[in-house]
């Protein structure tokens, strides 16, 4: 994207007033999307974003500036702005000669989406719409969206690192409204992988449409969710959101360093039921949060965070790792070149258990079974977290019975982790997600086998 001599010069300019570390991050992103709503192809959108973010670290201070002007002059101006922000120290480091490094992509992309005719993308939308509407007259509205993106990045820093990645992602989403005597209900399904158009060799969008419609139809008969504390069985796959919120964020080293995590100073201690082994794995081929290198140029890693209930390690970015004199764990990510990197999750999952999921349900006299989760939120300092149930059922006498309406569940991370008393043998990864932190969204994956929490608070309205 940019000549090595220009990168060298930019790094030198960034450090001319001093500083311990400088970095140039270049991004060129092309995206295309198509939206079907209300039975019409409403629009196709094409987008192009390109620019560079330059940071200079000097002691405790980071100076950051970005520019959409990738000429040598544009980069120089941004480097000066970033360098001026970092306080002038004594001399500063010299830029080490750049040496190019490559990291293996977690998967091969076979069909670049940009090579596919737009008409074929539109066809997928119509297929999903027809399939969803074929589920019956109660399906009153359907939205389907297709999106692909190609993000080429380059990272060069004053340690001499020069590396890059070509990240392709494709996703598809269907959402339905069903209308009945009790009002309207919604159902959704989404797929997404760091793959090209071959995604649609793996998935049938008609089936996706039918499944989304079925979820909405099922909920038409849903009764109000119960309220209060009770046993909750979380379904395989998307149930991983529970861990993303209950402990994932709390294991991010930047939050730990600021005492904003209930998991601070707990390395080596038991923080979860012995059933729990939690892994964050950016190398997981084909999963939504996978990449060859993070947005600081570090190769993705598989990091075990909790082993058999014992806290093993936090997740690290370059800045936090340097302060602790250790290596980054490959978790430094940013939304775009306009953002500073910080510690982020990739694909976060609980490793498989040994119990037949049917036995977990049969062994639960009463409670709630959550089969589809809808995102969540955590206060890492208190550990209190919520997550939504977008499809859930009552468990009565060890059987899954009636569907219940949507709502949030609330719990406290450390307490909930200890209260996991059954883990299924049906591990699966869930749907693609977007994780938000400090105003930045990045793609993440999560996964889990079926599991049971002995006590969680269900936020319904029924007694």
């Amino acid at each position, binding site marked *: 994207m940019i000549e090595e001599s220009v990168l060298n010069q930019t790094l030198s300019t960034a450090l001319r007033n001093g500083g311990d570390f400088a970095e140039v991050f270049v991004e060129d992103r092309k995206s295309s999307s198509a939206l079907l709503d209300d039975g019409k192809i409403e629009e196709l959108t*094409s987008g192009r974003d390109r620019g560079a973010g330059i940071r200079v670290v000097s002691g405790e201070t*980071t100076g950051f500036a970005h520019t959409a002007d990738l000429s040598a002059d544009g980069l120089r101006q941004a480097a000066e702005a970033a360098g001026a922000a970092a*306080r002038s120290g004594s001399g500063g480091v010299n830029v080490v000669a750049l040496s190019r490094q490559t990291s293996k992509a977690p998967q091969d992309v076979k069909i670049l989406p940009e090579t596919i005719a737009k008409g074929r993308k539109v066809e997928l939308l119509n297929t999903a719409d027809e399939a969803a509407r074929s589920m019956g007259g109660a399906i009153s509205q359907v939205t389907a969206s297709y999106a692909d993106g190609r993000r080429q990045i380059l990272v060069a820093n004053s340690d001499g690192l020069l590396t890059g990645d070509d990240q392709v992602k494709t996703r598809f989403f269907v959402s339905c409204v069903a209308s009945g005597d009790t009002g309207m209900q919604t159902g959704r399904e989404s797929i997404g992988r760091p793959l090209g158009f071959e995604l649609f060799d793996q998935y049938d969008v008609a089936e996706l449409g039918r499944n989304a419609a079925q979820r909405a139809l099922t909920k038409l008969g849903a009764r109000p969710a119960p309220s209060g504390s009770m046993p909750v069985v979380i379904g395989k796959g998307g149930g991983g959101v529970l861990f993303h919120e209950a402990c994932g964020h709390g294991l991010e080293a930047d939050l730990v360093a600021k005492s904003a995590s209930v998991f601070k100073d707990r390395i080596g201690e038991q923080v979860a039921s012995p059933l729990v082994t939690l892994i964050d794995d950016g190398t997981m081929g084909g999963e939504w949060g996978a990449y060859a290198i993070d947005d600081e140029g570090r190769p993705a890693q598989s990091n075990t965070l909790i082993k058999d209930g014992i806290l093993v390690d936090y997740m690290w970015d370059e800045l936090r790792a340097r302060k602790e004199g250790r290596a980054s764990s490959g978790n430094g990510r940013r939304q775009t070149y306009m953002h500073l990197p910080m510690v982020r999750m990739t694909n976060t999952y609980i490793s498989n258990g040994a119990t037949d999921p049917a036995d977990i349900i049969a062994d639960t006299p009463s409670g709630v079974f959550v089969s589809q989760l809808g995102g969540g939120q955590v*206060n890492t*300092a208190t550990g209190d977290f919520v997550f939504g149930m977008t499809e859930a059922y009552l468990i009565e006498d060890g059987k899954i019975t009636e569907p219940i309406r949507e709502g949030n569940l609330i719990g406290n991370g450390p307490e909930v982790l200890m209260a996991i008393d059954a883990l299924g043998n049906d591990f699966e990864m869930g749907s693609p997600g977007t994780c938000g932190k400090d105003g930045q969204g990045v793609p993440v994956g999560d996964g889990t086998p079926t599991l049971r929490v002995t006590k969680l608070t269900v*936020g319904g309205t029924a007694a």
Partner: protein
Amino acid sequence: MTVTSTSSAASANGSSVDHLLAVADRIIGEALPGEQVEAVVVNESETEVRVYEGEIESFTSSKSQGFGIRVIADHRQGFAYAGSLDEGVIAETLQEARDNATFGTADDQLGMAEPDGRPIIDLGLFNEAVASFPNEAKIKMALDLEKAVLASDSRIIGAESSDFNDSVSEAVVVTNTGIRVAGRDSGSYVMTSVLAAEGDDTQTGFGFSVGRDPADLDIERAAADAVDRATRLLGASKPATERVTIVFDPFVTAQFLSIIGGTLSGERVLKGRSLFADRLGDTVASSMITLIDDPTNVKAFTANEADGEGLATRRNVLIEDGQLNMFAQNAYTARRSGTTSTASAVRGYSSTPGVGSVALSLVPGDRAQDELIAGIDNGILVQGVAGLHSGVNPVSGDFSTGAEGLRITNGALGEPLREFTIASTLQKMLLDVVEVGGDIEWLPMSAAGLSLVVNDVTVSGD
């Protein structure tokens, strides 16, 4: 918490706005016979200072530009955008938008906005002081904020972040249907997120202050709010499950109103996704509820002179004395609904116009929060909610969020409460409002806050 400020399009002057207009004019000039073309061009600059433990943690200076092109040809719509104003990129983007239009479904009602005779009124949303505010002063404000937090209360163990942020945004909308507007606005805020601890218990709180001029920012108030929010929750316990009367703090009411505003979008009505479709003229809320979207009110930090399609904004009374009065519309949804645009098109340069309310407020009542509380025997003051994106469904109306707050017993505030949910439905909550507070507070979000008393909400805890 994320504070956002919307960019406005209005009748302002200035050389860089002129440059944006020139770019947009050139794009429109490329329109082919029979084509409608719209160009939105935006230029933004922003500074953010974050301090931690007396040091500058990060200093970010950003400048960004971008544009979006919408093309309607043969009753089909296409769109493309780019995050730069490079000459080569402009031609490529127009071509993409044009090509994208050929794949859209033909729809006779598609069309750009057209001038509706309403003049755009200068609301004075740009303040020169932001552009000339020195970096040293920005850094000092962030440092002073952290100092004020740390000096306030021995239970405060730190501030996770203390930020100063300012921004200037310029935007133009030009179409070949007669729209040509330009405008700019400025904004600044300080914000802090603090940690309080006592024994084993840790709690958090945030505080902020917003102004178009950095001189308007109230550091002491931001610090005091954050400290108060965090310290008053120390020792919080989980309540029992019961149905009680809830008082929403202004910040929570604002979040609730934003969701209600979304259900009153003409687009949701047309597409069968609004709870309130077919209910114009019906009683949908307590008679105390009059909900207004008024982007011309300069007290709102989200005030806007023109909407995302370049029409002059106006005061829209959505619900009046509990009766559903109107829906928000953009040019397309209005045409399809047989009405006129309410100048409620919302968008950035990277998207086509949607429909939304940007400056909602309830007509306030007379009494302060402590007077409202004095009349409640058993209830909860909710000071914060979590999971609005995961537990609230604006189509079905199901409402369930995580919450924290304080017990109300016999008219007085009591012990702190945490780790519970509050649940009802949007429809029922509007009808269950028993009093609207007089404490209106303008916030950096699409709705103003005030205290709101709602009966019969399910609290789910132990």
